[in-house]
Structures are given as structure tokens and as C-alpha cells.
């Protein structure tokens, strides 16, 4: 988009701004309270629970500590901790990308799960909820958790070519 306006046109408008500090949107305001900031529909939150759980289980399946995964995937350990424990937290796109690479799952699906892109796929949300309900964040993967995790990885991979590392 290109603008063809004179210098005077822009100057007049800039001066008319007066002493206003212009801003809009929650992000511009203050990211303060995580629970209030979440105005998204319920499915996003549900899928985010699954996202945190998914990262937690995948990490444990690989026998990694948070620190070790952070190191291997080149992401912040503090962010990983929040991802696993705080369902309101929306991770950065780069982090999701790195984790998708790390665990060899489709990036686009993981983005949906993390709430970064709209999940236009009701099936995925449903599967995510089912997965979250079947797994629990305990120290060792139970056989049931392991099975739930495998099934969910398969769902994530459906209809999308797997990323090659």
C-alpha cells in the first residue's frame, strides 16, 4: 500500500494529535493479568491444556529434564516451565516451531494446539481434550499415558507430512 500525500497533509495531522498518547488493544495496554486477558473461546483453552500436557509427556518420554529439553530445542527453560504448568500462557511462535522440530510433529498443528493460530479443526480440539483427560502429569509415564501419547501423536500427524529434522 502506498500513500501519496503531501508533507503539509501529514504535518497538519501530526500537530492535530496534540498531547494524546494513542494506543489500542490489550497488548498495548498491559499484559498484566493472565486470566483476564484471555478472551478466546473455550476450545483454545482446552487445546492449550493439551499443549502443555503434550510437551510434558513428550519431554518425559524422551527422558529429558526441562533444562535438557530447553538446551536441545534452544528455547528458554523458564518458558518451558510455564508452558507445562500454566494453561493461560500462549507461547511464542518460535518456541512452538522449535518444539515441533524437536519432537518431529507438524508445526501448523502444534501452533493450533498452542492457541497461536485459530483451530478451524474441531476434530483436533476434541482429540486434544480427550488426550488431556487421559494423561496426568506425574513422574513416570504409565502405560496408559504412553498409549494416549502415541495415539495423539498419530492424530497430529494426520493429513500433514511429517517434518524431517
Amino acid at each position, binding site marked *: 500500500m502506498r*500513500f501519496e500525500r503531501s508533507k503539509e497533509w*501529514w504535518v497538519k495531522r501530526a500537530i492535530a494529535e496534540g498531547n*494524546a498518547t494513542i494506543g489500542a488493544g490489550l497488548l498495548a495496554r498491559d499484559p498484566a493479568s493472565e486470566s483476564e486477558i484471555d478472551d478466546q473461546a473455550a476450545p483454545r483453552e482446552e487445546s492449550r491444556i493439551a499443549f502443555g500436557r503434550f510437551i510434558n509427556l513428550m519431554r518425559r518420554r524422551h527422558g529429558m529434564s526441562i533444562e535438557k529439553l530447553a538446551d536441545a530445542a534452544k528455547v528458554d527453560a523458564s518458558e518451558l516451565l510455564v508452558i507445562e504448568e500454566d494453561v493461560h500462557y500462549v507461547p511464542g511462535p518460535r518456541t512452538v516451531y522449535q518444539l515441533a522440530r524437536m519432537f518431529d510433529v507438524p508445526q501448523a498443528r502444534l501452533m493450533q494446539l498452542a492457541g497461536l493460530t485459530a483451530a478451524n479443526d474441531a476434530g483436533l480440539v476434541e482429540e486434544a481434550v480427550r488426550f488431556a483427560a487421559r494423561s496426568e502429569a506425574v513422574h513416570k509415564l504409565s502405560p496408559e499415558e504412553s498409549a494416549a501419547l502415541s495415539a495423539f501423536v498419530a492424530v497430529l500427524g494426520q493429513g500433514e507430512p511429517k517434518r524431517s529434522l
Partner: protein
Amino acid sequence: MIDSSTIFLVAGDTLEPVEAELRDGIEEQQLVDWQTQWQPALTEILRELARHGVPMADWPQSWHWDWRQKRAGVAGLLAFPGFSIMADDVTQGLAQVDLTRSARSAEHQGKPLAYVDYLEVAPWNRSDRGNVPRFKGVGTALLTAIAALSVDEGFKGRLGLHSLPQADDFYRRTGLIDLGPDAAYQGLRYFEMTEDRARAFLEEE
């Protein structure tokens, strides 16, 4: 390919014109500026408030920053269409638009509009707390770009936004309709620009 136009801001103290660039995109450089220049500047403002013993309750807009959240939000801007203003080789303002929302005002209810998801000027361009901004016109230029985008999209300039309290007066003055506080947005007031108003706003000299 990012398009860029030459625009003009004015210096906050002398009101002298300053050449600037309006880019229809947010790229890596803008995010780096945000991280390395905006964020420290905001932290400095907070430090100053604390130093002067201003109670937190009196800080502008309840600035109880959670940088982790804000950083993640800003990093997400790469994934959406946006605008940025550059002057002196530094990012002076950022905006992001959502083209999937509909109008709420009686006049245009249900019609698609350009929703301003995020619009922020660099901390040194703020004029609240009695500061003299380095540049004026950054917010207006971003709003101009979004109104023009709305026209380009066939939305006839229709535009919606949740205002920050210190900007409410400006939006009213600019002729946006005030649809009141929105509980879903921490009580921020929701404003809309009508087609007529957008036409006048974008009018050439």
C-alpha cells in the same frame, strides 16, 4: 514484498517536520527494536515512578508489567499483517490488524471491518505524565494506514478498536463512535470509525 511510503511526523518540542517511513509490515528489525529499545525505555519509566515514590496504584494504566507475556505477544506479531513507522532508523510505532471482525455500531452492524488488534507508539513518543514526546503523529499515521487498508479491503474505511484510557479523548475528537466499556477487554472502551468519518479522515488536501 513490504511496501513503504514516505510520510512526515513532527518533532515533539519544535513541531518541525521530520521525514519518516510507513511500512506495511512488521519484521524482525521492528521486534529487535521493541526488545532492545522500547522495553528498556519502559522499564526506565517504571523505575523513575518508583524512585519518585509514586504509589503503584497511580501508575499509568496499571502498569504492572509482565514482560514474559508481553514479549510473547509481541513475538506473535510476526505472524499477522501489520504496520510500522520508522524514523531515525528506529521503530517509532507498531500496529496489527485483524480483518475477520464485524462492526457493532448500529449504522454498520455485522459488516466486516478492520479491527485494530494492537497499536502502540514507542515509549519516548508518549506524552502522558507531562513528557514531551520525541515525535508526534505516529499514532495518527498508523490509524491512517489502517483506515486506508480498510478501504483497500472493500470495507469502506470501517474500523474498530479497543482504546487505551489515555487515548479515549483523541478517538472521540477524531470522530469515532464510543460504544462504551467492553467487559471482555478489561473494560477498555470500544470505538468504531464509520464510513463517512473514514472518508473525511483520509480526505486528500
